[in-house]
């Protein structure tokens, strides 16, 4: 069965971009435009991996993450941070990888493949 990736980013273009990129490479995808929306979707979809933007309206990426790891069922989902801020390294300590925008597609796919196959 195809692995599921939840894409969380407030920029619809980035969401479309990542969704298409993952779809093309044989993953299933779900999307959310902010942390609040993502909280519902992550519970429903139970993704195998999450890509997370840090700065979003309403719920910030880091806060979404903190809430998520309180949930036993969700706390081990690997997270890849994809953000435009210049020093995103420490925002989410347990992130599998931190990628800065603009990013390299091949590199991102490599990380995804190494994480969930």
């Amino acid at each position, binding site marked *: 069965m195809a692995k599921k990736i939840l894409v969380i980013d*407030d*920029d*619809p*273009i*980035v969401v*479309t*971009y*990542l969704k*298409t*990129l993952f779809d*093309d490479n044989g993953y299933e995808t779900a999307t959310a*435009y*902010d942390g*609040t929306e993502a909280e519902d979707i992550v519970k429903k979809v139970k993704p195998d991996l999450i890509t997370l933007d840090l*700065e979003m*309206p*309403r719920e910030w990426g880091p806060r979404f993450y903190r809430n998520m790891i309180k949930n036993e069922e969700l706390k081990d989902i690997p997270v890849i941070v994809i953000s*435009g*801020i*210049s020093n995103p390294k420490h925002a989410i300590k347990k992130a599998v990888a931190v990628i*800065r*925008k*603009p*990013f390299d*597609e091949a590199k991102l796919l490599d990380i995804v493949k190494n994480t969930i196959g």
Partner: protein
Amino acid sequence: MQDDSENWNILLVDDEQDIREVLSVSLADLGYKVHDAQNGKEAIRIFKEINPPIVLTDIKMPGIDGIELLQEIKRGNPDTEVIMITGHGDMELAIKSLQYEATDFITKPINVDALDIALKRVHDNITLKRKLREYTENLERLIREKTELQDRLSSLGLMIGSISHNVKGLLTGLDGGLYLFNSGFKKQNQAQIKEGFEIVKHVSGRIRKMVLDILFYAKERELKREPVNCLDFANEIADVIEPQIKDRNIVFNRDFDEAPQELEVDADFLRSALINILDNAVDACLEDEGKNTHRITFSIKKVENNTVINISDDGTGMDDDTIENLFKLFFSSKGGKGTGFGLFISDNIIKQHGGTINVNSVKGKGSVFTIKLP
């Protein structure tokens, strides 16, 4: 010395007419324009009228004496050079006058050579003060220029810092559009090719706007006014905004006069100005958790001889503090997302067009921006 004393005013004060007459002749010979007064009161009146660079005054006079006159003159213009004339045995008074910043004193009976020396000293003083003032002014100007340059540089630095986040987002968007385009080709998926193309078009529009913002800020550009079709212009702007609110539960209303009209504006800049305001309207709706759906109305109408542009949203609205600082450079209510740049530029561009911009906003209800262009 004589050359530059040509036509200099000198005020001569003495209660003795003989001395006034003799000195007037000597001073006129030296090239001065002499004004004389026989007492302190008259002297003050003339001083106020002609503000002479040099005053020559007797110390002992009935009524206002020389020392009082000296003080009065120094209060009126501290740069005035005052030479005191003293009688024999007035040494104490002479010294007192020096304490009150008289330049020099000469004793009666007046020796013309002594007068000449005293005047030379006065001239040196005046020239020196003048040079000093010039240097000081130059120095002040240099410091001012340096400070302005520093301000400019540091705000440019701030600006670059604040837009770099947006630039990264735009570059990612461009990558995204190109990826969709490319992968659409491979899959022969027409819809995706079209979507990729639309994204590239949209993002390049954004990049173009950002570059114009920077140019506008870096250098005050003259407006290039050209007649533009109002309806086309308005639709073009709406086309930039709409893709951003796709699937975000925001209704976007276009409310434009259908009748053909022309605007005489700098379309590039005015477009930027309006997009900045519309962007804020979109953000205000996205931030607002109070309602499930939102509405943004963008209207352009001719009212009498003005073009009135209204941008209203029912998003978060603003508190008074935000409204007050809205148009200030680097003020942003959007935390890390904002540049503090948009409305500052909008305001400038609209003012450059001779227009006005008004804001009405209620926290929790929404905001209305009204722009009036002549």
